[in-house]
């Protein structure tokens, strides 16, 4: 009776939905099949459900049907209407009889091919990238982790989207408390729909940080696995090629996927360059404004004369001049992101030649300001995941520096650092291993030691297995 009630409710729920297909079959007992046309693969329905049912002539119970006819790889019980809806909308074919009900996996495999992710191109190393299909993504992880310790906890989030989410971790490395905490947070999410993993990332940051992102994201399975091997937990969201990694440290932004396939010394040099670029990007415009407005004595004499010659005819104050450059840069960047790639190149040319060159020739903006703005702008892209935040910070610091001078810049830097060091997510301090100082973790921070010398897992990431080997 219970099964019939579920069937009745399902039919009521989907009576006005043309893509819901209901079919009656007599194979000794009356069987009702329900499937969603757009989510199911016809061939699978035919092979795993219809053909066996047609050949089975004298069934006596649904249980017998389930045991004898189900050639589908995954068969799940239907216990209530909620389970039925979830399985139905995910592409399962529901099989109802008088004394039982079950669902057979007939999901269609739609989606793009596995390609190199455009956000994480590498010269060396694997080129596979995650796709939008959860199952494929889990396969990409499983392919690299052929161990029984690789565990997955599934959850469903989204009132209307019923998005499947998998929490992946290595049982003998990850801290179970962190895993439980993440699963708990996922279960507590109350949201209409989840269209991408970035929706989930907001809920996985308990302190709701304003400025910096607190959840790592990667499109590459090798990176996700490397992070799991350090004790992190991966959250894979159906429909998103971005896999979330937790806990997340700021130093991860300095690390590039190709770092681990290069020589350690080259990696160290590259990371140091990225760090210097970011610091310069944020502080250079502010320092330029401060030095020009208040403390020009700091600038060497010859350099100062050059700057003065280039800026004497500019009608704006150095601060306004620099703000114009920074805002124009941000407008161009934003427009470039939204444009189709072919038009984007033209836009870059217009920005660089027409706006920049013409503005300098017209005497509206000085060449040093354009140079500083451009250098700062290019530097931002060495940390591509934080470009927007860093851009915002440089504008704010430039403004404060222009008003308060070097004291303003110093106070801004101190305030930002205080904010950053106070952040902590899932027991991992945001600026570790530098604040707090964890010397052992500096083996793979800004500097990198050769892989053979990295014996211990990072202490800043909670884990239950301290050593990588031995």
């Amino acid at each position, binding site marked *: 009776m219970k099964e019939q009630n579920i069937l009745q409710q399902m039919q009521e729920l989907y009576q006005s939905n043309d893509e819901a297909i209901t079919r009656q079959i007599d194979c000794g007992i009356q069987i009702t099949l329900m499937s969603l046309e757009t989510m199911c693969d016809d061939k699978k329905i035919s092979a795993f459900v219809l053909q066996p049912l047609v050949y089975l002539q004298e069934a006596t119970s649904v249980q017998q049907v389930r045991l004898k006819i189900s050639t589908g790889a995954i068969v799940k019980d239907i216990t209530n209407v909620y389970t039925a809806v979830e399985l139905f909308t995910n592409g399962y074919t529901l099989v109802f009889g008088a004394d039982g009900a079950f669902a057979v996996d007939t999901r269609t495999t739609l989606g793009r091919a596995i390609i190199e992710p455009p956000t994480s191109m590498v010269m060396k190393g694997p080129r596979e990238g995650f796709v939008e299909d959860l199952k494929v993504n889990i396969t990409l992880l499983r392919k690299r982790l052929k161990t029984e310790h690789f565990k997955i906890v599934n959850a469903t989030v989204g009132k209307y989207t019923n998005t499947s989410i998998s929490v992946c971790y290595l049982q003998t490395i990850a801290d179970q408390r962190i895993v439980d905490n993440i699963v708990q947070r996922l279960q507590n999410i109350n949201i209409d729909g989840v269209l991408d993993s970035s929706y989930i990332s907001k809920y996985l940051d308990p302190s709701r940080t304003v400025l910096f992102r607190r959840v790592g994201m990667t499109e590459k399975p090798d990176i996700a696995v490397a992070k799991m091997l350090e004790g992190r937990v991966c959250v894979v969201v159906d429909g998103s090629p971005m896999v979330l990694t937790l806990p997340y440290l700021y130093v991860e932004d300095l690390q590039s996927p190709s770092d681990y396939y290069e020589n350690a010394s080259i990696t160290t040099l590259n990371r140091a360059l990225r760090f210097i670029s970011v610091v310069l990007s944020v502080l250079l415009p502010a320092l330029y404004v401060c030095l020009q407005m*208040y*403390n020009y*004595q*700091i*600038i*060497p*004499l*010859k*350099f*100062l004369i050059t700057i003065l010659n280039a800026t004497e005819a500019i009608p704006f104050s150095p601060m306004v001049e620099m703000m114009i450059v920074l805002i124009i840069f941000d407008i161009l960047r934003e427009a470039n992101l939204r444009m189709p790639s072919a038009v984007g190149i033209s836009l870059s040319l217009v920005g660089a030649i027409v706006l920049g060159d013409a503005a300098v020739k017209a005497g509206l903006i000085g060449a040093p300001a354009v140079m500083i703005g451009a250098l700062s702008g290019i530097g931002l892209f060495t940390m591509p995941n934080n470009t927007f935040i860093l851009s915002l910070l440089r504008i704010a610091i430039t403004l404060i520096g222009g008003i*308060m*001078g*070097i*004291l*303003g*810049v*110093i*106070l801004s*830097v*101190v*305030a930002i*650092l*205080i*904010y950053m*060091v*106070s952040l902590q997510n899932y027991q991992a*301090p945001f*600026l570790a291993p*530098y*604040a*707090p*100082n964890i010397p052992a973790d500096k083996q793979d921070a800004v500097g990198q030691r050769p892989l053979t010398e990295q014996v211990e897992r990072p202490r800043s990431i909670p884990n239950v297995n301290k050593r990588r080997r031995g």
Partner: protein
Amino acid sequence: MLDKNKVYVSQIGVLLLLIMSGTKILIFPALIAKQVGHDSWLVMVLSFVYDLVCLTFVLWAVKLNKQNLAFTDILHKTIGVVGSKVVLVIFFVLFVSRLISLLHSCYRMFAVTFDVNTNWVVFIIPLSLVSYFAAQRGFNSIARVGQLLVVIIVFSVLALVAFPLFQVNFSELLPIGEAGIDKIMEQSVTHSFWFSDYIFIYFLMDTIKVKKKIFSPVLCCFLLGAAISVVTNMVFVLLYGSLSPEAELAMIKIGLFSVSETTSGRWDWLTLSVWIISVVLKVVIFFFCANKCIEKLFGLHLSNTNGFVWLGITATLIVPLFVSVEEVLPTFIKWTIIPFALVQYLLPLLMPWWTKISNELSLSKKGAGI
């Protein structure tokens, strides 16, 4: 105990190293050179010896504080409510007056160095806001910023001192003790106001995470900080000789000497700007401690740092608008030398004993199930 205020012993050491220089390499060298000439470094050394002894006692007290009792709890249990309030009042006045002297010397440094003649109120408000923000995020954040920047700050000071260090003739410090041992000792006592930076440790007694090694990290940092201050003082006196009492802002004058023979611009101002971060940290720490004094004095149980208390402390800092700090400060120090010496030099010697007693009392209360 709030987790965000938790600090490690090594972080205490780093903070002590950073805040020790402060005014000691800014206006103090000229002040003391006025009294004892080239023997000013001896006054500094002697004062650091007192500090070293007191710091050792304070650390000993921290080690004995097994029950993680707050400083005020220890005072309550040993000298009573009234006694503890008197001590807190003295501390509050000490912190505020040191804040004023620190900010004032910084203000003058900005005016002289960076040609920024801003209003005093406009100068202190941003610093107060940053201090408030830092206290809101917890003392742990302040300690972590110290850890993050200690290398570049120390390097910036050393970069300023390194060049003149090899230019001066140290034999000019001879004869040692020319001003007379009595005078040197007297000056080290009368100028004690500028020392004992370790007093902030009192207000963290309940939040310090004690490890096996408690003395060596802090004492090593203290000795390094003391060495930097003494060497800077020596270099300053040797560079400017009889003119040093008039030179006032020592660090700037040393920087000026470093760049005087180059045409590479005032790069010393950049290193000075980095060093100022340690002064900002000192301001933040003293603000934090003054705020703690007020909280405990009035029995406020604030989950977060209270904005009104902060505003009150900031309001006390506008004193220099109405009086000349240069004129009033010596008289003020003269009047307050005894109460200040009580908390700076006598209290540390008593703290291990008081901590032990109050811990035993606390333990016996717990044992009795009270």
